[in-house]
Each structure stands twice: as structure tokens, then as C-alpha cells.
């Protein structure tokens, strides 16, 4: 071809002006203060490694790099092996791959709802609480307390809870009674079962002798319970009034970063799966069959035969994810509520915040941009070496 310059000229001019030149500019700019007038040397970098805000961002980025690429690769490997050689599984593969097509913003909104702390609204906590309560009884009257800790002839006056919706009048009898010592409309006397005061059904009652529970029962609709007579004391275990388990505060300051990484794995697992599936298709089947015939278990085949042969593609997936993870921005911005954004901070987000989000400290912003650039340099070298080898 004759006029190569005409063909690659426009692209190279744009790249030079908007990508290459800015890299140099940003490096120089990072040595100046916020206003751009005063030369400050490495002070901006010093600030990155001393100010608590950026240190949190750095620590979170480290958590991201350690967790996210490995989890994505493992999930992708798992799905690739799981769906391998099942023809109809391609429909499931499409479903797993689907989140790749949507924006981090849409994914962020989606997961903000998944992670809603109230188990009545967020499905993550709804699921956890359901499983938890299948193994442990839910406290029937959270937050309630006894009017007096002294048990007077098996009668327990409880206050501090709303009346049961379909409650019935408490009655004396049996071994004793547990009732809500509150008469609607007023006029109730403490410790006395007044008309209109409801029994509390479903309260666990224990008979204790020498510190051991010898019998237990639960109260009926009118609050009455019956325990065999004997030489014991009767008590209501604290578990009746404990706060119920309400799941995890996903978007609270302590677990917000792992929670966001969970959403990230949802988005990217499909990418890893597709690449690893392709790698899997390239493995000679005989090697797997030979191992099986030699009596290897499926787990051994996976660990000793499949994974070693997939190594190159696993490395590519992992490196690609590291590059992506270092740049993570939108997902944190949208998924972390404003109040915990400082706790969920990452370098890319902090760069935007200090440069464009009010403070406009372009010196510090430039230094953070350069830091990100330096962090992806090893990945850049990896790509170049791969290119050289292939070609």
C-alpha cells in the first residue's frame, strides 16, 4: 500500500493528543500543587500514602485485587466444567453471561436492592434469615421484658411488646400464665390479670432444678402452660425476648467491599466461563479419559489433568480481571450508599472525587491517576510479551 500515513494518520493523531500526551502531562502535573502553580515534588504521592482516606482506598484496592480476580476465575472454571458437554446448558451459559452486557450502573442498582438490609425487602438477607430460622427458632417476642424478674406462683407479667393480633384474654390456671400486662384503654393494674389483657402464646417455659432444665413447654393461646409439679423453679429463657437474626448489613461499613465484590463476580463470571469453556474444548479428551480409566476421581482429574492444561487461559483471565479490578469505579459509586462511600473507597473513585467531585485538587488527582497507571504497567508488559510470543 502506498499511502499508509493517510490511513493511520487520524487514529494516531487522536491517540497522541488524547492518550499519550495526557499521560506525560499527568505525570508532570502530579508534581504540582492543587492550583497548578507551585512545584511540590513528591508531596502528592506522600499524601496518598499518609492520608487516611487514600490509605483506605489503597487497602480496599488490595482486597479487590486479592479476592475478585481469583473468585471470578474460580467461578468461571466451575461453570465451564459444570456445563461442559451438556448440550442444553448453553441456555444457562447465556444467563450467566448476560450481566456482562449491562452497565455497572444497572448492576449497581440491581444489587443495591439485593443487599437491602431489611430481610423483608432484600433477597440476600431474606434467604439467609430463612435458612437461619430453619435451624434456630425465631424469638417470639423480641424486645419484650418481664415486669418483674421475680416469679410469683408461675405468673409472668410481660411488657414492651405490641399485643398479639389474634390474642385472647389471659386466664389463670394450669401451672401458671404468661400475659401481656397492659390493658388497652388504660386502667390496668401492674401484676394483675385485668379484663382485656391478652395471653402470650408460644412463649417457651422451662422448669429448672440445680441449674438443669428438667422440663419445658410452650404457652397456649390464653398464655397458660402446664408443667409437671416438682421441686424446681420456673423461668422464661432469654431466647424468648432476644432480637431476631436479621441477616448481614451488607452495605454497612464493615463488609461493604466484599459485598460489592460479590456483585462484581456476578457480572464477570460469564466472561471467565466463556474463555475457559473455549480452552476446555481444546483439551484432548484422551488425556481425561486416560486418567479416569486409571481410576482417578473427578476431583483428581480436574486438579491434576484439566487445570494444568487450562493454565494459559486461566492466567489470561486472571490478568485481565486484575486490570479491570484496578480500574473499578462505577460499581462502588452506585452500590455503596453515600454514608459508607468513604469505607468502600477505591483509588479510581478517589481520583474522581478529589479531581472532579468538589475539592478539585488536580495535583493529588493526577498523582492518583499516575498510581493507577503504574499499577497496570505489569499487565501491559504481560500483554506485550504475549503479543511477541504469538507473533
Amino acid at each position: 500500500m502506498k499511502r499508509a500515513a493517510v490511513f493511520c494518520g487520524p487514529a494516531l493523531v487522536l491517540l497522541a493528543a488524547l492518550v499519550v500526551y495526557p499521560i506525560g502531562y499527568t505525570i508532570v502535573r502530579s508534581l504540582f500543587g492543587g492550583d497548578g502553580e507551585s512545584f511540590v515534588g513528591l508531596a502528592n504521592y506522600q499524601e496518598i500514602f499518609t492520608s487516611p482516606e487514600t490509605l483506605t482506598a489503597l487497602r480496599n484496592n488490595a482486597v479487590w485485587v486479592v479476592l475478585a480476580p481469583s473468585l471470578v476465575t474460580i467461578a468461571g472454571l466451575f461453570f465451564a466444567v459444570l456445563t461442559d458437554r451438556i448440550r442444553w446448558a448453553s441456555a444457562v451459559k447465556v444467563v450467566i453471561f448476560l450481566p456482562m452486557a449491562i452497565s455497572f450502573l444497572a448492576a449497581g442498582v440491581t444489587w443495591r436492592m439485593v443487599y437491602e438490609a431489611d430481610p423483608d425487602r432484600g433477597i440476600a438477607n431474606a434467604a439467609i434469615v430463612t435458612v437461619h430460622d430453619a435451624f434456630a427458632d425465631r424469638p417470639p417476642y423480641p424486645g419484650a421484658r418481664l415486669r418483674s424478674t421475680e416469679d410469683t406462683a408461675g405468673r409472668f407479667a410481660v411488657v414492651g411488646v405490641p399485643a398479639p393480633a389474634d390474642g385472647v384474654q389471659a386466664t389463670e390456671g394450669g401451672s401458671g400464665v404468661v400475659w401481656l400486662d397492659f390493658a388497652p384503654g388504660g386502667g390496668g393494674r401492674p401484676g394483675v390479670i385485668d379484663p382485656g389483657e391478652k395471653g402470650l402464646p408460644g412463649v417457651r417455659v422451662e422448669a429448672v432444678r440445680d441449674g438443669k432444665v428438667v422440663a419445658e413447654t410452650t404457652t397456649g393461646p390464653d398464655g397458660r402452660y402446664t408443667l409437671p409439679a416438682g421441686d424446681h423453679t420456673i423461668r422464661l429463657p432469654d431466647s424468648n425476648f432476644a432480637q431476631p437474626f436479621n441477616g448481614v448489613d451488607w452495605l454497612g461499613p464493615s463488609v461493604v467491599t466484599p459485598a460489592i465484590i460479590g456483585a462484581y463476580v456476578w457480572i464477570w463470571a460469564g466472561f471467565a466461563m466463556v474463555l475457559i469453556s473455549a480452552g476446555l474444548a481444546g483439551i484432548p479428551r484422551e488425556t481425561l479419559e486416560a486418567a479416569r480409566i486409571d481410576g482417578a476421581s473427578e476431583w483428581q482429574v480436574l486438579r491434576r489433568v484439566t487445570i494444568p492444561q487450562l493454565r494459559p487461559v486461566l492466567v489470561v483471565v486472571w490478568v485481565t480481571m486484575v486490570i479491570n479490578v484496578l480500574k473499578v469505579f462505577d460499581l462502588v459509586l452506585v452500590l455503596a450508599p453515600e454514608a459508607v462511600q468513604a469505607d468502600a473507597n477505591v483509588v479510581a473513585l478517589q481520583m474522581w472525587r478529589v479531581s472532579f467531585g468538589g475539592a478539585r485538587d488536580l495535583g493529588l488527582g493526577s498523582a492518583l491517576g499516575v498510581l493507577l497507571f503504574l499499577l497496570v504497567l505489569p499487565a501491559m508488559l504481560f500483554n506485550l510479551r504475549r503479543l511477541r510470543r504469538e507473533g
Partner: protein
Amino acid sequence: MKRALVVLVGLLWLTPAAGLLVSSLRPARAVNSSGWWTFGELTFDGYAKLLSDDRMLGALWNTVLITVPSTVLVVVLGAMAAYAFAWGRFPGRDWLFLVVVALIVVPVQVALIPDAELLGNLGLFGSIPGVVLFHVAFGLPFAIFLLRNFFVAIPRELLEAARIDGGSDGTIFRKVILPLGWPAIASLAIFQFLWVWNDLLVALVFASPDSAPITYAIREQTRSFSSNIDVIAPGAFLSMLVPLAVFFAFQRYFVQGLMAGSVK
């Protein structure tokens, strides 16, 4: 057992998105008081409210105005440059190509501040052309890399034959390279389209409220999440429809593009 697990995983992966869809069809007060899996009353009110909001509609239109030119420009400029890198002979060609490949992973953060100033000097900061220019510049390295690798595999005889027939570079590019390179060009176009359509960061920096795309507009609403949920959920779902349609229509090219190696 394995099959059951496959189905289970599929359902698990579908659940979050299903939650968004159902929530977008529930009245705000229902979303804020009960889980989407209880369904209850379903309504299109959220979508109606969204589509009667001029700002949201304008933002959706801005997304189109940003995404289409960005995609076309990256494909055209990228294909031209890739042709030159694949078949041209000029000093420093291989070295320049290495630089282009190196640029694939450069984070946009390292260019945001100077490019904001540069576009400001050109009077393009806060305008749609400014946003487009930035997207094009950062889309080009991957475009050139992907297309060059594809173009280089086109048989030399085809190009020679076209040249002997008196074809100029332009004719060869249009009559030989573009038709034969179609699969790679389609992959690239889809990727570029999705990246730009789904972008938030570049829009936050380079767009103004007037030129803001839908991601920007929804993000403004998410700052008070529960009170705006009646707009956020339908908005997020609407913004997903176009990428999902593109994905389903061109799934094959999408996967091919991924296979082509390095992704930003």
C-alpha cells in the same frame, strides 16, 4: 445431580435481574415495604413517569447521540489504521503497533485531567462531541489491535489481485478489506457500542447536565435511593434493554470478540 446444579446456578444468576424487573413494575410504596418476590400490585406507572420526564428522555436520547458516533468513528478510524498496520510499509510500523497495544490497558484516569483542559480549550468540554472524542481515543487501541490481527490473515493474493486490477488503497480497503474483515468489525462494533452505552465515568467528567447520558441521569437519582426508586428501577431496566437486545442479536460476534484475546 450435576444437571440440577446447572439449573440451580442459572436460577441463582437470574434472580438479581428478575428482582430489578419485578421491582420496576411495583409502586414505590410497595418496593419500600415488602420484597419483590411477594409481587402484589403490578403497574407501569414507574415507566410512564419516567417516559413523561423530559430530562430522562433527553438523557436517553443523549446516550444514542453519544454511542452511535463513537462506535462509527472507532470502527472507521480503527479499520483504516489497522489496514495500514497490517499491509502498509512505513518506518517504525511494528514499533508503533507495540505502542498501540500497550495503550490498550491505560486507565482513563491518567488522561481525565489533561483531556478536560484540552477539550475545554477547544470549547468541547461539557458537550456531546467532547464526550465522543474521548470515547473514540480510548476505543482506538483495542480496535486497531483486534482488526489488525484479523486483516493480517487475509490472503495476500486477494490484495495483489485487486491492485493489479488498478485498485487504489481506498478501493482495496472498501472492496476487499471491509467485506472480508466483517466478522471482526462486527465484534468490535458491538464491544464499542456496549462500552460507550454503559459508560458512567467519562460522562460524569466530560458531560454537562444538558449533554448527560442516561447512566448519568440515573446516577443523580441514586443519591437518594429509596425515595427515587420508582424512577431508578424502571430507568435502570430501560437502560439495560438496548445492550441486552444487541447482545442477543449478535451473541456470536460478541463471543468471538472476547476470544480475540486481550480485553481492556
